[in-house]
């Protein structure tokens, strides 16, 4: 049984940009065949597959072709060449409430939208109440959609799309609308969607969203698919592309990372050839967490030091290796992601075993359990030698009484009233009078 939900095969899309577009007969006749058209390839030979049940993010700068790709997948645009094969029913949220008819009531629009997604009236009947409840529009469902606030509009649009239970859901940057509470609700819905084993494809600018919900991500740049891999790697490559682009924009200005050196490219090529031969030259052997007093208690005290040691074994000399460290809370939120490259370490691994340690002077987070994710990759991020998640975990106890997420250095001072003299000096600098 095939398990591919979306198969994008050699998809290219050409837009023809005319300086002026002649759409009337008169203009066509006058200008004859002399309409100069400029070709713009929004997509060039894009290939990737999405397996059933996978959540794949599409990252890319503005104009990188991600929306065009989604439109091709949804069938709104036809690729100039190549094809997209979609297995199962697909619901596209290219724009929330796109199929809504202003003059109709919310109720009628649900049925209209449902039939656009290929559902019969009976099918929509079954989930109608669910949609209304999700959109929180019980009172307004029989009002014309044109009287809805933009928030209500968006809620109805999302509610319809997700409750139609498509096998494949395609979302284009629409999660950034709506109030925060509804956004959270949407994310929860998406999570249950994932648990139900459905396929989600979505476009976003937000790397954090990719990290928190995607299994995999693809990066598009100028119509080319430049990378495909685990979210962390994809985000990294996406960032690199952003930086490259900004380097081009401000030529000579100081970028955050140095331009890719020839050496790095050579290392990258070497790394790739290793992996292509099926070798994983550098692998973790162990990842351990150290903190003061770990012999007595199985938890770290907030504010104590934290050392995370990554033990590895190299079967051969490997140049240009980057060790990646991620700390995540139990909700899967990344609280820190860093690597040796960012921290200014150039590492060439000799043959044999070794260990690298990330040292946190203090760990300010309050009670909770945290996971350590660790990876080894090439400097340009194109090759992943090893990736473990979680590689280790640890628990934190806060000896103090304040609650929340992080222990920020804070003081409480009386700044007004008869007892205020003590802090007078401070308040004057902080509070503008």
């Amino acid at each position: 049984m095939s398990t591919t939900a979306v198969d994008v095969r050699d998809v290219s899309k050409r837009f023809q940009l005319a300086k002026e577009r002649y759409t009337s007969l008169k203009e066509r006749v006058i200008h004859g065949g002399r309409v100069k058209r400029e070709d713009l390839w929004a997509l060039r030979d894009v290939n990737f597959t999405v397996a059933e049940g996978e959540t794949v993010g599409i990252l890319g700068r503005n104009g990188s072709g991600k929306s065009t790709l989604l439109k091709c997948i949804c069938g709104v645009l036809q690729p100039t060449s190549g094809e997209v094969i979609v297995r199962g029913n697909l619901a596209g949220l290219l724009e929330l409430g796109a199929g809504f008819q202003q003059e109709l009531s919310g109720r009628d629009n649900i049925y209209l939208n449902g039939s656009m997604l290929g559902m019969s009236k009976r099918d929509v009947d079954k989930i109608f109440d669910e949609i209304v409840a999700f959109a929180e529009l019980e009172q307004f469902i029989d009002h014309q959609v044109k009287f809805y606030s933009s928030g209500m509009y968006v809620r109805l649009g999302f509610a319809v799309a997700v409750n139609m239970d498509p096998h494949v859901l395609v979302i284009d940057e629409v999660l950034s609308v709506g109030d925060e509470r509804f956004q959270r609700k949407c994310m929860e819905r998406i999570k249950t969607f994932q648990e139900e084993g459905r396929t989600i494809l979505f476009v976003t600018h937000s790397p954090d969203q990719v990290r928190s919900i995607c299994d995999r991500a693809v990066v598009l740049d100028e119509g080319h698919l430049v990378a495909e891999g685990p979210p962390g790697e994809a985000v990294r490559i996406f960032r690199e592309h952003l930086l490259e682009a900004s380097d081009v924009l401000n030529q000579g200005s100081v970028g955050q990372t140095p331009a890719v050196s020839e050496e790095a490219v050579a290392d990258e090529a070497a790394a790739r050839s290793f992996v292509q031969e099926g070798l994983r030259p550098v692998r973790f052997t162990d990842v351990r967490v150290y903190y003061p007093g770990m012999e007595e208690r199985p938890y770290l005290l907030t504010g104590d030091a934290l050392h995370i040691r990554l033990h590895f074994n190299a079967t051969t000399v490997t140049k240009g290796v980057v060790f990646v460290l991620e700390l995540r809370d139990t909700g899967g939120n990344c609280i820190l992601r860093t690597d040796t490259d960012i921290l200014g370490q150039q590492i060439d691994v000799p043959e044999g075993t070794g260990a690298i340690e990330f040292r946190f002077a203090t760990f300010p987070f309050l009670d909770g359990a945290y996971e350590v994710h660790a990876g080894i990759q090439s400097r340009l991020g194109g090759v992943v030698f090893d990736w473990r998640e979680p590689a280790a975990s640890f628990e934190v106890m806060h000896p103090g009484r304040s609650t929340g997420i992080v222990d920020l250095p804070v003081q409480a001072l009386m700044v007004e009233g008869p007892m205020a003299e003590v802090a007078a000096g401070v308040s004057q600098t902080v509070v503008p009078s």
Partner: protein
Amino acid sequence: MVLEVPGPVPGPSDVNQTEQENGSPTELTFGSPWPDGNGAAKVTRTVSANVGLWRRVVAVWRSRELLANLVRTEIKVKYKNSVLGIMWSMVAPAMTLIIFTIVFSFLLKNGIPHFVIFLFSGLLLWNFFQTAVQTGTGTIVNNSGLVKKVSFPREILALASVGTASVFFFFQAIVMVIFLFLVPNAPDYSLIPLVFLALLAGAVWAAALAVFLSAVNVYLRDTQHLVEVLLTAWFWACPIVYAYQRTVAKSSKLHQWHLTWIYFLNPLTPLVMTFQRVLYNIPVGRLTVKPYQVARFLPPWSGSTYLVADLAVLGIGLVLFVLALVVFGRLEGNFAEEL
């Protein structure tokens, strides 16, 4: 747990990706309300520049419920906030009938008995055809919001125009039936099925033209205006306001030069004449003006002549409809960009 990194992750310089096997996906076990999608038999859809005709037809057929919904929407929107609502689509033709009766009984007597019924029989079909083609031509452009954002077989929009027109036809037909009872003039009940055949043939032609013109109109917006003008000309090419038997067949140049067949190149002519034959049903009668002689108002054709003619029109219409779908498929690729 080790996250499987599927093979080499290609670097920034890699353009062509090879297909990758991904980790085993979860088996779909949820109960889905989709008619044909319970995990086992999912519909596979291909988006590409060349989708075969058969697939298009299947896609259109699958979307028939959408078609019904679009028709419903269009009618609802047209009569929103109006007290009489859909009744207006009956008031308008009723009014036309009353006016025609007054005009042709007192002002413009042309001698044909119950001329209003003759006129309305032809108009019934023509109004349907004209509404369908006219609204169908503009439908893709007018629904650009949908076309650019939502995926569905776009032909449905053109077909919905025909559907909407047929709803209006239905209400006009009710008015016609009432009128037939008021005026003592019985239709030829034995030939009633011919009316439905002619209507079907007209609908197929309207659908073919609507599908074709709606696509062309996206690229050449003049089309909708051109169509409006051409439809007026077409109207006069059909024997609606005048009786074929008393004009073309008798005294016209076409008749003199034995070129009457040219007149029948118009596919609507046999259809309109079928409506007249069945609903008007006064082949021979006495003129209502001097010299009050007995005259022939409808051609002396048997029912089977009408049957054959209508079937021929239907057949050609079906061929054109298929061609229109093919052309539509060719032009459809750039809709979202051109709108």
